[in-house]
Structures are given as C-alpha cells and as structure tokens.
C-alpha cells in the first residue's frame, strides 16, 4: 500500500495566444507561485520539483529542468524532467505523486508549460528526416484517419464532433483561465469553419496556447489549511506506435490504464461512480472515442452519450467542464491542467464551471501517436 497523497495547491496562468510580457521562466513561476499561495506555502516548504514540457524541438529549449531551476526555487533540491509527448503533463503529476506515495518526499511541486508562440508544433512534429519510409503529416493529418475509422465503425453521424466543439467552448466561457472564448458559439459557427484534415474542421481542433500549470502535492502528514484533493489511483501505460494489429481507434494502452486506475480507486462503473472527468480531447471526435476507451460507454456507443448531452456541464457525467484542450492548449501543460482541474472539482474550487457535489474526478492525458496514457482519480474523501 502506498502512502496517501493529496493535491493542496493549484496554480494556472490565463491561457492565451501570446504571453509577450514574460519569459518562459516568468511563465512557470507565475503558475508555481499561485499553486504555493493556494497551498499556503512558500518555496522553502517544497522538497522537490518535477517539470514537464513537450519535446525539445517545440521551443528549442533543451534541459528546461536546468534552465528553470532558479525560477522554481529548486536550488539545492531534487529536480527532474518528465518526457512523454502530449501526455507529459499527466505523467509529470504522476511522477510527483509517486515521490509522495513512495515516502521519498512530503511536498512536491509539479509544473508543466508550453509557450507555443515561441515555437511551431507542426514543424517540430514533421522534421522530414531523410530515409523515412512513412509519410508524416503532423498531428491533424495523423489523427484524422483514426477519427474517420471511428465514424465508420460506430456509424456516428457527422455532427457529433461539432457538438463537442460547441459544448467545450460553452464550458470555456465559465473558466477565467480558458484561452478560446467564443461568445454565442453554436453548431453553425463550427460548421462554417474551414475543413483542415477531413473530417476535422478548424473549430474541431485545439488552439495554440501559451501557459503553465502547477500543483503542490503533499503527504497526509504535511497538509495545510487548504482543502485537499486525495489521489485515489494513478496509472500510466504506453504501447509501441508500430505494432501489427494495434487498434489506433481504441488503443489497448488506454483501456489497460483506465482499468488499472479504476481498480485502485474502487470504480466498477465509471459512468455512474465518477462525477466529472477532465479528458485530453484535442480534436472534438476524441470525446466519443475516449468515452469508449475509458469505459464510460460500450464500444460504438460513445457518440450516443455525447449526443444525449450526458457529457455537458448539466449532464450526468460532465466531461471537460473547464473547456478542455479544445479551449486551451499549452501542449506540455495540457495534461497537467486536466489533472489539476479534476482536483479543483473535488475540492469544490472550480468556480463557475464547478460540478455540484463532485466527489470523484478523473484526470486523463494521452500523447504521441495515441501511445502514451496517464490517468489519475482524485476524490474529496481520504482513501
């Protein structure tokens, strides 16, 4: 049995297209200071720092753990970097949690960031190496075929993705940190945006954001006056991107990861036992796909849950009450934001997008070619 771990502080920056007023160091510090303030702590109270960001080519910053040690008060303390592509924010939280659960430290600061305005993700993901045997076409071109295959298998009508695109942006209007805020967002607006990678339209995709997110994790013995979100389960899985018979629509790694985290948290029926989920949905169609992958719906039925409104803020299982990745996407931080928003919900601190009475929440991230998965369950009651 591992030691209990709780989130006692959350800090976010307002996600936006360009944060020209701060350096990368200033950006992560802003999130970290807010997390410390939420926890009622100072830099001196932190034992170790874990940082995550997207691959180095994104901003050309190698070894952010070295560059950002001063900004994160890590001098003289253990500091490490986590590196699992788009799921890195989630993995960062889990590595931090494991340091508490394993009894190594009592208080760990976890931070993740991306300053997309200083980089170009599409360039970084398609560097056109010589001798490549495969056509690499960037994230949209990579994921669009899997979405098409999902639609074929499930028979989902074509407006389902647009429903998610609208729903998450409506939620974003209630989140002061959200990047995309589109007043009056509706289906017509989504349908009128250009088709980028059929079947993905412009508003079916996530924005490019600057931003950072941080959390203070604590052992049970070192809580502060701040309301804790208890970690009920943590799991990571990965799978090779090139494996014969790999199901890219409903990846085994995701199913296994969910089963593991549910087992630890004692969840047998996620749809009924989880109050709110923050799930990594960078393209709108990934909501119905992950509804199935994460066991909220049986295979082929996820889109019906979306269509019924069950995943809306006033539905029985709200997904991405914060607006999700579709509304804010500082890539390296996006997974950590999911984990942090799940914690805010069970702490009752999500503000206008709070799901009433949320006691158990799922945080989820995935990355690479849907090959890295990171999840945690958090709850208001100590396990």
């Amino acid at each position, binding site marked *: 049995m591992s030691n209990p771990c709780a989130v006692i502080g959350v800090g976010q920056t307002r996600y936006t297209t360009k944060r020209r007023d701060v350096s990368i160091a200033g950006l992560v510090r802003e999130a970290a200071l807010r997390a410390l303030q939420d926890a009622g702590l100072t830099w001196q109270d932190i034992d170790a720092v874990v940082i995550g960001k997207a691959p180095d080519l994104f901003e050309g910053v190698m070894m952010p753990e070295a560059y950002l040690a001063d900004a994160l008060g890590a001098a003289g303390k253990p500091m490490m970097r986590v590196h699992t592509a788009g799921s890195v924010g989630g993995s960062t939280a889990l590595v931090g949690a494991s340091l508490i659960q394993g009894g190594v430290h009592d208080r760990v600061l976890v931070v993740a960031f991306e300053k997309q305005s200083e980089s170009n993700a599409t360039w970084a993901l398609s560097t056109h190496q010589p*001798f490549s045997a495969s056509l690499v076409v960037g994230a949209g071109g990579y994921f669009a075929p899997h979405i*098409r295959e999902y639609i074929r298998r499930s028979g989902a009508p074509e407006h389902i993705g647009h429903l998610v695109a609208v729903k998450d942006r409506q939620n974003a209007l209630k989140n002061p940190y959200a990047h995309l805020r589109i007043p009056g967002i509706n289906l017509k607006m989504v349908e009128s945006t250009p*088709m980028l990678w059929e079947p993905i339209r412009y508003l079916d995709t996530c924005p490019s954001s600057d931003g950072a997110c941080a959390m203070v994790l604590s052992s049970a013995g070192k809580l502060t006056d701040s309301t804790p979100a208890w970690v009920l389960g943590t799991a990571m899985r990965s799978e090779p991107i090139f494996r014969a018979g790999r199901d890219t629509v409903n990846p085994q790694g995701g199913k296994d990861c969910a089963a593991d985290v549910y087992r630890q948290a004692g969840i047998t029926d996620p749809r009924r036992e989880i109050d709110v989920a923050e799930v990594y949905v960078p393209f709108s169609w990934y909501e119905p796909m992950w509804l199935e992958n994460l066991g909220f719906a049986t295979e082929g039925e996820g889109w019906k849950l979306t269509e019924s409104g069950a995943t809306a803020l006033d539905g029985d299982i709200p997904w991405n009450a914060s607006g999700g990745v579709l509304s804010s996407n500082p890539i390296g931080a996006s997974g950590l934001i999911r984990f942090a928003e799940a914690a805010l919900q069970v702490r009752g601190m999500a503000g206008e997008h709070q799901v009433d009475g949320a006691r158990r929440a799922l945080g989820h991230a995935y990355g690479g070619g849907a090959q890295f998965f990171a999840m945690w369950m958090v709850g208001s009651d100590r396990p």
Partner: protein
Amino acid sequence: MPSSDPTTLRARHALEFPGGYTRTTGPVIGRFLTELRDGRVVGVRTAAGRTLVPPLEYDPDTGDAVTEEFVEVGPAGTVESWAWVNTPRKGHPLDRPFAWALIRLDGADTALVHAVDAGDVKAMRPGLRVRPRWRAERTGHITDIESFVPEVTRIVSEVRVEYSLRPGLALTRFLQGVAEGVFIGCRCGGCHKVYVPYRLSCPECGVSITEEVAVPDTGTVTTFAINNLPDPRAPEVPFVSAYIQLDGTDIPMIALVGGIAAHEVRQGMRVRAVWVPEEERTMSMSNIKWFAPTGEPDVEL
C-alpha cells in the same frame, strides 16, 4: 524656365530666410534643449505639481509661470497614440516608414511628439514601451533624439543542429528493395505477423526477426485523411494521406493516394503503387509517386 503657354504659366519660388531665423529660447526651453545636448530629458514642474514634457514657459491650466524646478524624466516612455507614416517625406526625421507618436516619458504628466522607428506598423500599439536613440553629435535640438525605438522584448535564438544520418541495417535493406521496385517486409517467428517496412525485431514479441518477405505493391486503403493544408511532398491541395495495408502484411504504411479525386477515395479501396520510371529510381520512398486505384472492387473492412 517659365512657360510661354499662358494657361500653364507657372514658376517655382522658395522663401528661405538667409541662414535661418534665430530664436531666443528663454530660460525654460533653453534648459530643456541644453539637457538634450547632454543626453538627458527634463520636464518642468508647474505650481500644481505637474511635470510638463516638453516644458512650457506658462502653465496652460492656470496661465501662471511654471516653477523653476526641472526634473529628469525617462529616458523610457510609453506610446499613448500614434500615426503611421508609410512614405516619409523630405524633412521627416527618418527615411523609412515610421510612426509619429505621442510618448509619455516615465515621470512626465504630458506626452511628447516624436518619431518611433518601429520597423513595421504591426509593432505599434498604445502602451508600447520606447526609448530614445540619441545622436552622437548633439547641438541642443529636439532632433538630438534621432527617434525613439521599442524596448527589447524578444530575441531571435537561432538553433541549428546538423546530423549525419544513416538509415541503419533494416531501413537500408528496405530501401534497397524500393530502389528495385520491391517492398521488403519480414515475418516474425513468434507471432507470424508480417511487417513492412523490413525490421529486425518484433515490437509485439521483442524477438529478433530473420525471415525476409517480399511484399506485393498492391494493398487496401484502411483509412485516410483528406488534407486541405499544403505540403511540400503533395502535388496539390487537397491531397489524401492514407493508411495502406499491403497485401499479405499486418500493419499499414502511410502514403499518398493519387490518380483519383480526393473525395472519391474510400476505406476499403484497392490500390497499387505507382513507381517512377526505373532510370529515376534511388534508394528513397520518392520512387513511389503515390498509390492509385487498381479498379478492383472495394474490400469489406
């Protein structure tokens, strides 16, 4: 030369006082210009405590004389408002596009009009922080400041890493095949799955693979994207990037589909590689122009 045509009778005439007018500055403006010559900007205090920059001799609010107190301001300031000059005229302070701006220097209560050398109109905005660019030779004139320039807020960090890449044993073997118009794959001795391109170990079983298999250049489109964003490797937009499972293999490759309108591509469609002429082939995937429909009936997926 005056014209002899009475309807266009016209002549140039310049009025210029020989040597230029002399002006007595008075003590207030004189102090301002003297400080400019020394590379400083000063304002003058009014009785009400406001700092006027540039200084005036008489407080416009009250009509009283300003005090004799001068205070150094700036040198940095904030753009309050601006107008872009796209085509500078003779007599303008700069010979390239610039902005006339109202600049409130730090510590001043009024704004100064000066030129901002911002490079591009997009760089201008209210709130822009600027600093004076001084002339080396100063004479005590407002043009001792050649112009204001934005503060440094960004740098360009040029990163370039050069590699010498070799494709490795497995990919070399595959590309040798491609040079000869053949796809080389392999069969795992553990799970019997056929992989293409050729590889040396099985990602499922973790064992070495030794059995080489030549794979046909026909296959089935399992799924695809219609890309509406241009790509240097695609001949046009929209283009189709497809997962193509070559016959007898267990894993799809991603490749272009051509020879068919993008919106006519289907999941289950049968395709065949279109090879470039033999004499143009190299050890590269560019030997395959794209995959084109074979015309066979679609496959049930």
